């Protein structure tokens, strides 16, 4: 599908952007941007910048090829062990985010107090002084009248963001983790690391890769797609359990279309088979683990026959895969975030726990071909570089998202998107009045319409972002932020860190009148009268300089070495782990202390299919989509303008629809209208919706009104419901919902 206003070549498009932007400045609309420099004819590359991609947390190091001060091309940094000279489709496309004509380019304030879908905020351009004054005075008003807890920061838990919330004195620093990977995080912390999930997996040297809902190859994860391809070329076997034929499944030796939400049953039976038949790595288990005997006892009831009845996977298949997995070395369970062990079902955290147990039983924790523990270079912490007084005690108080009720998750210092709306609306445990949001979109919440209702009750909302997102449309003040191209500093390798290595980030001069969030933090804290938390010289630049100094090198030297710091070192397998016993705890004393059964148990999913809602909802992401942030890219929109309800022809026939027809997908909370896409590669009792679409911000000129948001179908939760679900990681239950489909 194409619309007339996207029918432009790149050069025309950029030229027109200039004039349209200039015209809009006079009009004062949200798209009122200063013109961007247009491309000159075929660019002569005249320099380069090093940096790290901010599209996903893999953070691949890039080389930006420059011409006349403009980035014309990106390539992967060949010196980076993660990027290996390549980026992924989302990384290459980020150049169009940087130069997106719809970008937020100067601060604005709202003049229309009404908020909602289709409501014109009546934006007026203001200066940074006005924007920071307004933000600081509103936050101070709320803090003085209601206390610091009445202010929320919705942001990923990074240095400056944490410092901002803590300096204000609010416990309410809320991140998206329980919609993303909190289940993995809590079990890794409890059983192995003492500090959360590890990210590096040595797929390249694995000989047996077993995946449950993991689609790392289909999410264009740069290093992993390449590493698994290499492993396959070296004779590795890849087996994928997934209700949908994902791209990873299409590359596998076996695709097993398991019933959604039942992976745990298969895993428990696999553990039973491996333990009872003594197929585990005896040396590894004896030396580095604790609790095998208790585990053996706990899994006896979970026979492959029992698991077959639940999962619809034949018992022989389960037993065969268990034996193959244990017999082939090295073997690894592929997992990352929103796979079967992600926060999708009430039992997903037990699934994640079984992943750790199976990887441990075959000796694949911190061994070649397995999950590699943290070798991230430790740069000096924020509070080691800047001196400021202790944060107020109020940061330890109860939270509006109820995180304090989940001790095992609270210890990780993250947050819950699923419970925030009901917390705000019920004013339980107290009323909150103001919110500062940094780069989280409304569409990322479960049940965004409900979250919007909650936001509307707030007295003040400030949003720092790059694009005019739906969250920005609900703001009272918009604080335009840097893209990752415009930021600077150091980025230690985490997603593929076989050895300690740090990437340099050269800053691109910022486009438009934008400010980094660190600068917002410094200024707002000062203007709020919290100057004691902003010591003289505190800045993003100062932080980077102090960190570079600890590497005993200079920016010039790192640039001279190709933008990377750190020498390759051989992998020295760890023999001590971050648990109370120093062993990998198959019987988890940390879970026990936090009030959970220390051993894995079968747990029923929450959603039950019924006559009214007879289908499972599956959520996935196309390789080129960057959550809800890439749909405004005109090239991506050209080959994928909207998302779909992907279904089996058998289901489509029942519903009476064909390829390309519009259908409603409806859960008990909302419904969305999307086109049908047919494939034989999905269970007939499932409908799969891909994520990222359904934008209603009119200022996203390409993405506006295309497709539907899968998040609308996901119920948000109360803290009580979250407690009842029983997950220590507060899993937002992103797919634990039944739906129906009918012709639109």
């Amino acid at each position: 599908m194409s619309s007339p206003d996207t029918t432009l070549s790149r050069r025309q498009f950029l030229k027109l952007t200039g004039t349209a932007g200039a015209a809009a400045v006079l009009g004062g609309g949200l798209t009122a941007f200063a013109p961007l420099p247009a491309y000159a004819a075929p660019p002569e590359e005249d320099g380069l910048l090093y940096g790290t991609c901010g599209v996903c947390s893999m953070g691949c190091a890039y080389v930006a090829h420059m011409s006349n001060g403009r980035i014309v091309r990106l390539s992967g940094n060949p010196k980076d062990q993660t990027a290996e000279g390549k980026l992924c489709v989302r990384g290459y496309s980020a150049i169009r985010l940087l130069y997106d004509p719809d970008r937020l380019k100067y601060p604005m304030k709202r003049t229309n107090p009404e908020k909602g879908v289709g409501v014109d905020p009546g934006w007026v351009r203001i200066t940074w002084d006005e924007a920071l004054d307004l933000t600081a005075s509103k936050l101070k008003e709320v803090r003085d009248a209601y206390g610091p807890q009445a202010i929320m920061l919705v942001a990923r838990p990074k240095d400056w963001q944490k410092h901002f919330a803590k300096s204000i004195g609010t416990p309410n620093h809320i991140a998206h983790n329980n919609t993303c990977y909190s289940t993995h995080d809590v079990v890794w912390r409890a059983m192995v690391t003492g500090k959360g999930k590890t990210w590096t997996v040595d797929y390249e040297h694995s000989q047996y890769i077993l995946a449950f809902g993991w689609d790392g190859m289909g999410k264009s994860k740069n290093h992993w797609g390449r590493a698994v391809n290499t492993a396959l070329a070296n004779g590795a076997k890849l087996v994928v359990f997934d209700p949908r034929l994902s791209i990873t499944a299409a590359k596998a030796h076996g695709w097993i279309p398991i019933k959604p939400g039942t992976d745990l049953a298969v895993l428990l039976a696999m553990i039973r088979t491996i333990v009872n038949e003594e197929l585990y790595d005896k040396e590894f288990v004896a030396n580095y683990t604790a609790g095998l005997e208790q585990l053996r006892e706990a899994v006896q009831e979970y026979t492959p026959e029992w698991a077959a009845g639940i999962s619809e996977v034949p018992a022989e298949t389960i037993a065969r895969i268990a034996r193959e997995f244990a017999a082939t070395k090295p073997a690894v369970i592929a997992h990352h975030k929103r796979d079967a062990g992600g926060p999708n079902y009430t039992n997903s955290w037990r699934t994640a726990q079984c992943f750790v147990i199976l990887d441990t039983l075959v000796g694949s924790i911190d061994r070649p071909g397995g999950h590699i523990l943290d070798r991230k270079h430790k740069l000096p912490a924020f509070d080691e570089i800047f001196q400021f007084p202790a944060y107020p005690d109020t940061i330890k108080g109860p939270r509006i998202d109820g995180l304090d009720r989940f001790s095992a998750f609270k210890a990780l210092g993250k947050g819950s998107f699923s419970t925030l709306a009901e917390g705000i609306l019920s004013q339980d445990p107290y009323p909150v009045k103001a919110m500062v949001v940094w780069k989280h979109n409304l569409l990322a919440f479960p049940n965004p319409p409900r979250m919007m209702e909650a936001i509307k009750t707030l007295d003040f909302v400030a949003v720092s972002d790059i694009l005019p997102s739906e969250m920005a449309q609900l703001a009272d003040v918009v604080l335009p932020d840097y893209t990752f191209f415009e930021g600077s500093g150091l980025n230690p390798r985490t997603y593929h860190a076989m050895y300690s290595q740090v990437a340099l980030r050269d800053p691109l001069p910022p486009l438009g009148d934008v400010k980094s969030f660190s600068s917002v933090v410094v200024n707002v804290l000062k203007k709020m009268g919290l100057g004691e938390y902003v010591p003289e010289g505190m800045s993003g630049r100062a932080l980077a300089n102090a960190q570079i100094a600890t590497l005993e090198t200079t920016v010039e030297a790192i640039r001279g070495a190709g933008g990377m710091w750190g020498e390759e070192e051989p992998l020295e397998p760890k023999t001590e782990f971050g648990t109370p016993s120093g062993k990998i705890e198959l019987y988890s004393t940390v879970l026990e202390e936090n009030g959970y059964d220390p051993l894995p148990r079968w747990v029923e999913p929450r959603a039950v299919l019924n006559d009214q809602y007879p289908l499972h909802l599956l959520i996935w992401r196309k390789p080129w989509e960057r959550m809800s942030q890439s749909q405004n890219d005109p090239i991506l929109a050209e080959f994928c303008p909207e998302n779909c309800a992907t279904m089996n022809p058998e289901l489509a026939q029942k519903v009476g629809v064909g390829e390309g027809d519009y259908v409603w997908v409806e859960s008990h909370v909302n419904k969305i209208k999307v086109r049908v896409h047919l494939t034989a590669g999905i269970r007939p009792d499932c409908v799969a919706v891909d994520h990222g679409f359904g934008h209603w911000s009119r200022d996203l000129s390409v993405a506006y009104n295309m497709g539907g948001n899968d998040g609308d179908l996901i119920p948000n939760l109360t803290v009580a419901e979250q407690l009842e679900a029983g997950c220590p990681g507060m899993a937002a239950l992103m797919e634990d919902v039944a739906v129906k489909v009918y012709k639109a």
Partner: protein
Amino acid sequence: MAKAMLIDTSNCLFCNACTVECKRENDVVIGKQIFWTEMLTHEVGEYPNVRQYYHKRACNHCTEAGCVEACPTGALYHHPDGFVVLDQDKCNGCGYCSQACPFHIPQLDVANPLTGEAKSNKCTFCVQRTANGGATACSMACPFGAIAFGERDELLVQGNERVAALQAKGVTKARLYGEHEMGGLHVLYVLEEEPEVYGLPSAPQYPATISLWQKIVQPLGSVTLGATVLGILGAFFVVRRNIRMEEVK
């Protein structure tokens, strides 16, 4: 030495890194479904015994290229390195190249809605890069080892080795496509299935009329044009002579 690309579909993850980098590098028109390279999915079988194959579809740069034969303006021609270049400045938008292509690759785009002026569109092998010692944008972009760029002889060896490895792993239908087709393609494919599964004809050929067109009709056209010009000139001189005769009288 002939240059080529080797597309190893067994490594392709349908990510479209090639698509976006091609459009950026070559300034391909956006929003009109014009692609110099695009990704296709091919599905075989019924649930639950279903397989999916991914394939990068673009100009195959034939040695015996129907488009080059058919092009009346010289906009399509073979580069000395073997691949087929399209010079849009010389293209008159006649569309014969599309009809002549056994793979149905060239796309016509109405570049100017006022005059109706159209241009053909297809992969140029990133001639601006490859003619200067560089590689194609898609091969530089591909993160997963599915696109190699290099000397055709070497890629043939590499492709055949890969096919042998796949066969040894039980992919019995694995094959190399493009070694001999159309006199030898400059885009070679490692396939895991029959070519038809990927929409590639197993015995591609261009319509005989295309050859007829360039070898006979076009020269004939030139002869006819020449005769017409001569005729007009002749008439002009006859008329002028007659006028002068009138004047003399």
